[in-house]
């Protein structure tokens, strides 16, 4: 399997503070990869670095083999990487449909083609059709998350990065959102799930990476990795856990 997105010795800093110490992660077409780790492990930093929101060297991030590290965020989207940002970051004051249209307009402008249309998205998440004209801020958290995912999908990505999409949502809603994953992947889109919930991450992904203090401490097939291994990688070597 060839990697769609890969990082090579990815290093990122916030000023003098180094947050990532040489991270190697790759995603293949249509694959779901989970990225887990405790708070402050560097998961969100990893996504920010990939999306060009932090300065990184070009060669550290590659899309289909091409160096793209540190490019402007909108260029990343143009090349096929979309993000569902943590905390959703919807455009308040706009209706659900207008929020989605931002992505439709931009995809059209950049000439990105793909299988996602507003109508198809509304078939995937019917609530987006019922609430099309509702201001996004009056939606529930789960519904907002669906808007955020929809917005990212309408950019017609080949790689979808999801930053803690289950955060603060009821288990039932989380299941609803994760149920959409197979259809997204069927499109050939590679999905990276950054998750706090280890069980959920493990069951929803093909492979997983565990990070600790800016380094990858464990990687492997989600079905084969044991809880003990994850526990050790999650909290550091010496802890025997769970």
């Amino acid at each position, binding site marked *: 399997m060839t990697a769609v997105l890969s990082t090579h010795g990815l290093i990122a800093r916030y000023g003098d503070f180094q947050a990532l110490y040489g991270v190697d992660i790759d995603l293949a077409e249509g694959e779901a990869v989970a990225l887990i780790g405790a708070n402050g492990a560097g998961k969100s930093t990893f996504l920010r670095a990939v999306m060009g929101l932090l300065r990184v060297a070009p060669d550290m991030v590659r899309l289909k083999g091409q160096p793209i590290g540190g490019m402007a*965020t909108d260029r990343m*989207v*143009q090349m096929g990487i979309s*993000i569902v940002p943590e905390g959703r970051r919807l455009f308040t004051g706009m209706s659900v449909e207008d929020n989605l249209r931002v992505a439709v*307009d*931009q995809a059209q*402008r950049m000439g990105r083609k793909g*299988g996602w249309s507003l109508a198809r998205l509304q078939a995937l998440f019917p609530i987006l059709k019922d609430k099309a004209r509702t201001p996004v801020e009056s939606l529930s958290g789960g519904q907002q998350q669906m808007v955020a995912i929809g917005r990212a999908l309408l950019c017609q990505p080949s790689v979808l990065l999801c930053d803690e999409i289950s955060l603060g949502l009821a288990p039932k809603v989380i299941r609803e959102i994760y149920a959409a994953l197979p259809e997204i992947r069927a499109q050939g889109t590679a999905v990276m799930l950054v998750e706090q919930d280890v069980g959920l991450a493990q069951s929803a992904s093909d492979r997983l990476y565990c990070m600790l203090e800016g380094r990858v401490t464990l990687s492997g097939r989600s079905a084969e990795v044991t809880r003990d291994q994850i526990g050790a990688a999650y909290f550091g070597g010496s802890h025997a856990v769970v």
Partner: protein
Amino acid sequence: MTSIPISPASAAPAVTVRRQTTSGRIALTLFAIAILALALMPWWAKTGTIRMVLELCCYIAVAQMWNMLAGYAGLVSVGQQAFMGAAGYAMFVLAQTFGVNPFLAIALSLVVPAVLAVPCYFLLHRLDGPYFAIGTWVVAEVFRLVSTNLGWVNAGAGMSLTVMKDYSAFQRNIAMSLLCAVMILLTIGGSYWFLRSRYGLALIAMRDNPVAAASQGVNVKRLRFMIYVAAAVGCGLAGSVYFMAQLRINPASAFDPMWSNLAIFIVMVGGIASIEGVLIGTAIYFVADRWFGAYGASYFVVLGVMTVLVALYARTGIWGLVSRRWDAPWFPIRRHLILKTEEKP
């Protein structure tokens, strides 16, 4: 323009996009009539009325440019008078010093704000929020000081447009009326066209959350730059036209911060991020200026207090309050997806 068919994706139902509303169609018709009425002013209005309308049109143009900057691009400028003065001076120099036809000079003078806006933006674009605002003010003051010290624009004494005496009063009225029509068409019509283009929603998204907008593929940097340059040209046009009507220009009037004050008042009170708000705000300002202008300083205090109250308690301005109650936009920019099988709501 009412509906744009979208090619349906695999297994997706056929849909159309509805963009225009009844209120929008009525407003668009009225807008076209207004532009026509402006152009035909010499045949129905007195010279005094034309001058008053011209001033009104300049207010609308400057306020709308400020609205595009602050309401959409998130660039709060208090120095747009820099480009009004620069274009005004350019027009005076071309017409008075070089003998270019003054009406051609207005068109040519627009190159100056466009060219000046580029280096200004490169100086200012790293500044954020209030720092950006202060920076723009500094730029305007620098422009004023430079013009005060330039011999070939007659320094602090300013210039007069004596070449205008070659034209009869009626000819000047025709020119003023046409300029009003063109100015409104370019600033209001142009903004509306831009907001309805695929940049429109991107612009609103960008104002709301630049990082998230960039994550949806919006080229935030380039859009901001485009808006800044366009607003400079729009303000320049208003400046050229205004000072041509005044027949005099000097540094104090050309780079008068009053223009920024009135733009802020108009947009904040009328309703930020809406064209409707600019029209409402201008009407209020214009009436207030006629009725209470004689009270001088205390009148400005009242305008300032009004702006602050609106900013604190009704951030969307008068238009925001109106549109919350009646969903009848004059310049609709939203689009609605309608399934073919459905009845239009």
